[in-house]
């Protein structure tokens, strides 16, 4: 786990990690969140939709942004204040995604940073989820 302090963070700093969105991940998310919508959980149902297959919950991406800021950028001293999300493309089961963030703003007055966050399909390069995180640094 990274331990960047506010003074150690610079605009332009970036971090990323890869993550496989597997059937197990989607099933576990459905179980813990209670969102068992058949588009996420029922192959037969999902095949009959315009998506032609099961789609991962968009909020799995939200969870991955939580890992991005809580573990990588800035890491331990992170206090997650807000996160915007735009679901640009469906993430199908079996997709390997890259979760990344780049610092775009530092506010000295509150020791906060703004991070542009995104999730892209590693194979196609398509940006699937975008958003902005606002994080306070505890040190």
């Amino acid at each position, binding site marked *: 786990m990274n331990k960047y302090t506010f003074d150690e963070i610079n605009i332009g700093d970036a971090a990323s990690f890869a993550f496989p969105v597997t059937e197990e991940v989607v099933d576990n998310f459905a179980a813990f969140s209670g969102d068992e919508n058949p588009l996420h959980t029922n192959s037969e149902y999902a095949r009959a939709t315009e998506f032609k297959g099961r789609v991962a919950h968009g909020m799995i991406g939200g969870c991955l942004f939580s890992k991005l800021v809580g573990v990588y950028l800035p890491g331990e001293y992170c206090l997650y204040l807000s996160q915007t999300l735009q679901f640009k493309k469906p993430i199908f089961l079996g997709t390997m995604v890259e979760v990344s963030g780049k610092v775009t703003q530092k*506010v000295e007055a509150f020791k906060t940073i703004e991070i542009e966050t995104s999730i892209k399909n590693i194979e196609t390069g398509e940006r699937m989820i975008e958003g902005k995180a606002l994080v306070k640094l505890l040190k």
Partner: protein
Amino acid sequence: MEKLKTVFAAVLGMSVENIHDDLSPDNCPAWDSLNAIILITEIEKAFGVKFTFDEAMAVKNFGDATKLVESKGGKSHE
């Protein structure tokens, strides 16, 4: 359209016409502690200025924000 009003309207989810000097956390429920931080973030970005903690905490209403931005060389009427 005044640039600072546009920033406040976007962050607080209000129309620009409803932004006035006396607008404050006391009469605007959307101006909570989180949006106070977001307001300072967006103002710094929009005007290219930086505030200290004390300066940021001294902003009690929109009129204060206007004066603070102007004191930093920002043109709030842009």
